[in-house]
């Protein structure tokens, strides 16, 4: 290392130390504020539990509440980190201060790192104190805790805070004034999120087979901030054993690395942009116009859809498009007016408005024409690891060949009637390479396809169900419908053997007597809901069964259970 490098590093470190000293106020406030959340709020919550004033009289279950606590910690510390970056780089927006900072004998890269680390590194103190206090509280009597979950939550909170600050740096470097920084930061992040929702709303409307569960993936990935919180949430749910509540299925270490990768990429982008940033842009709206262009198009896109929907009352006709164009232009011209503090660049704003409206129209056209072949995509049978079908909320495994057969039927026949929203069937494929493919199709309840009934009655469907039931011990059954001796609803608790008897009887009825009515909303249908729990009572499964009037054996058995006193009486074998 040359003496010059040593000197540069020293100047950078000195600037870091100086900035940290200047940030002492923010650090103390952040620490106090976060300690009020944890352990402050957690301590009060624990006291309530132990005093028996809460709904649960169990010991305080920190294992479950760690998700809520850590999410609040992450969100709060990330907001503080973003604010801290705003404050530490506010010198970029004044010609006076930028003269001083950019004349200092330090490279731009060192300057950025010194200020960035001075903004975020001290925030590890409140994070460590918060999670350290949680670890301390977990040793209290009557507290059920999981140190691994706390440490995992700590790692995620710290990484997400770092990522939030790093991602914000891109906006900071690109903006020319504090006002435009806030506009672009909020505009792009919120705009991206809303645009994803809009696109999925359009997919839902125009893309045959589009299934809403596809939305969540993109929604959670629409912004690094949202992704970070969703990842933490999912990882912690996985750790405490509630897999079904996970938003993202990514492995914890992959999520963590992803968050850190976003942080690194954001910092690298910020450094590259900062090194080419023109000092004279301080005080202008933007140092890099591209950020304004992106913001403008997103605002125009959201405004177009919003105004179109408001004035067309939810329909996509001519009125929608007239107001969509108006909305796009109003959105971009207003943003341009705010950024320019006037309407000098109104022509450019109009152009962005037109681009936004065209983008919206292009989205609709491409969805209607299915240019990606989304609606017609049917996987090869060989590539399917597992296939499930969900019929009106009743999900079960099916033979991949049958699933493909059903899929082809919908694509070739029912798909043509995409406007019809009646009964639905969701086909879900788990493909080779950990890929998934989901499609939803609607069918006419007065003309239920034969293949659906065939799948409904198939052996695979019932074998899987019986297998699941065999792992459970305690059963609660609720009945709804007119079949139950004119009672609208009734409930009973069953033993394992009784539940198995009931299911066997029901399956026998389905195979012998079920008609296409079972896949419709026929008023004559009754429903049976079985909730089964395992030995610990922690894990449970929930099943729904539709009962036709012709299912005499099932109905007789149910009547027999109910006549013995419902929930309070359990039949002896």
């Amino acid at each position, binding site marked *: 290392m040359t003496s010059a490098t040593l*000197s540069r590093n020293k100047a950078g470190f000195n600037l870091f*130390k100086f900035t940290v000293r200047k940030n002492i106020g923010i650090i103390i406030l952040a620490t106090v504020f976060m300690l009020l959340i944890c352990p402050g709020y957690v301590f009060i919550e624990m006291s309530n539990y132990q005093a028996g004033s809460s709904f649960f009289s169990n010991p305080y279950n920190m294992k479950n509440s760690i998700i809520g606590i850590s999410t609040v910690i992450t969100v709060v510390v990330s907001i503080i980190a973003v604010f801290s970056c705003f404050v530490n780089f506010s010198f970029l927006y004044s010609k*006076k201060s930028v*003269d001083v900072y950019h004349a*200092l*004998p330090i490279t731009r890269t*060192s300057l950025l790192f010194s200020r960035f680390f001075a903004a975020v590194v001290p925030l590890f103190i409140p994070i460590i104190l918060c999670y350290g206090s949680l670890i301390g509280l977990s040793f209290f009597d009557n507290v059920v805790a999981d140190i691994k979950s706390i440490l995992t939550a700590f790692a995620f909170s710290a990484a997400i805070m770092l990522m939030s600050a790093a991602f914000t740096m891109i906006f900071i470097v690109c903006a020319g004034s504090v006002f435009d920084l806030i506009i672009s930061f909020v505009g792009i992040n919120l705009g991206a999120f809303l645009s994803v929702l809009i696109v999925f709303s359009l997919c839902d409307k125009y893309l045959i087979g589009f299934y809403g569960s596809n939305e969540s993936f993109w929604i959670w990935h629409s912004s690094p901030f949202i992704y970070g919180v969703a990842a933490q949430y999912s990882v912690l749910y996985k750790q405490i054993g509630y897999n079904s509540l996970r938003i993202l299925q990514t492995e914890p270490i992959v999520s963590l690395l992803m968050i850190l990768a976003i942080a690194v990429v954001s910092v690298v982008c910020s450094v590259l942009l900062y090194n080419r940033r023109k*000092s004279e842009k301080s005080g202008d709206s933007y140092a890099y116009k591209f950020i304004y262009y992106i913001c403008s198009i997103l605002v125009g896109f959201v405004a177009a859809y919003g105004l179109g929907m408001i004035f067309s009352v939810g329909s996509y006709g001519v009125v929608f498009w007239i107001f969509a164009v108006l909305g796009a232009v109003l959105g971009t011209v207003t943003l341009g007016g705010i950024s320019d503090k006037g309407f000098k660049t109104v022509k450019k704003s109009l152009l962005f408005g037109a681009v936004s409206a065209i983008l919206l129209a292009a989205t609709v056209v491409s969805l209607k024409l299915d240019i990606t072949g989304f609606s017609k995509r049917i996987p090869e049978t060989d590539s399917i690891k597992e296939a499930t079908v969900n019929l009106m909320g009743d999900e079960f495994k099916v033979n991949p060949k049958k699933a493909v057969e059903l899929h082809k039927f919908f694509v070739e026949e029912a798909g043509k009637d995409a406007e019809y929203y009646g009964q639905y069937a969701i086909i879900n494929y788990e493909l080779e390479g950990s890929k998934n493919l989901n499609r939803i199709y609607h069918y006419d309840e007065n003309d239920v396809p034969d293949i659906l009934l065939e799948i409904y009655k198939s052996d695979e469907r019932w074998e899987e169900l019986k297998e699941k039931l065999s792992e459970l011990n305690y059963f609660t059954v609720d009945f709804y419908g007119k079949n139950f001796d004119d009672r609208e609803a009734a409930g009973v608790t069953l033993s394992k053997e009784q539940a198995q008897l009931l299911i066997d009887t029901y399956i026998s009825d389905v195979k012998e007597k079920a008609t296409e009515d079972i896949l419709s909303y026929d008023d004559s249908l009754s429903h049976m809901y079985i909730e089964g729990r395992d030995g610990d009572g922690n894990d449970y499964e929930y099943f729904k069964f539709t009962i036709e009037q012709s299912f005499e054996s099932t109905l007789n058995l149910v009547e027999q259970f109910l006549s013995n006193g419902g929930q309070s009486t359990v039949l002896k074998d």
Partner: protein
Amino acid sequence: MISCKNLTKTFGNKKALDNVSFDIADGSIYGLVGSNGSGKSTFLRLASGVYMPDGGEITVDGESVFNNPQIKGRVAFLGDTPYFFAQSSINEMASFYSSMYESFDYDIYKRLIETFPLDYKAKISSMSKGMQRQAALILAMSTAPKYLLLDEAFDGLDVVMRKVLKAILIDGAEKRGMTTVIASHNLRELEDLCDHVGLIHNGNVLFNDEIENLRGKLHKVQAAFEQVPEITVFDGLNVLKTEQTGSILQMVIRGDESEIMDYINKLSPLFAECIEPTLEEMFVFELEVTGYDVSNIIKE
């Protein structure tokens, strides 16, 4: 040496500096003169590494300044409006600069705080504009720069402080070989301070020379004649400007003083004298020759 070659800086559609080339010699006190918006401050910001050139290059000691900490460590730039960290005192700012500039010299700082009567522990934000400028000068000088770049250095300073500042700059040049570049729109401020001067207008350097050279070249001659001779009589001299008031002729002539006076005395004037023109007059003469409308360029 500060050297720029084909230096260009553009703000939007406006060229603040347009293909400018000139050098500033080490140890000189260089006055950069021009009206508001002429490109003076832009040049200083380029020389201090604040701005990135859009074309050409500017070097200090042979190296590019932009993003070059080694070179920037030798340069102190004081903009037209000083900036200090919020709530900071002069002592705190000195502590900051000492941590950033290896060359920061506390001996110079101590000498300067004895010279300038300021409260060094008080918040700078509570000080007057003139005091803030003094504080900024003290801090800039304390970094013991090889190159000191001052933008409108005398703004807000009273007469006494202006003299003190001039003395400090001259002292810096003499004792440490410090090069000072002062951008100003006021020529008179620079007259008794600078040894080099450049005139910048609309992004172009119109003029760049040593003041001594200028003084040696240009002369203002007043002569009275019984009968004023024809102007053509003076064709043997390099007359830049002639004004006649009755029997008195006022001429601005380029050339050697003794040769000029010999030439005029041969015409038997009743009275003839050679007066040294002011810096402003020299600029006016030089620029009028090149066809510039001086009234638009040099304004007080």
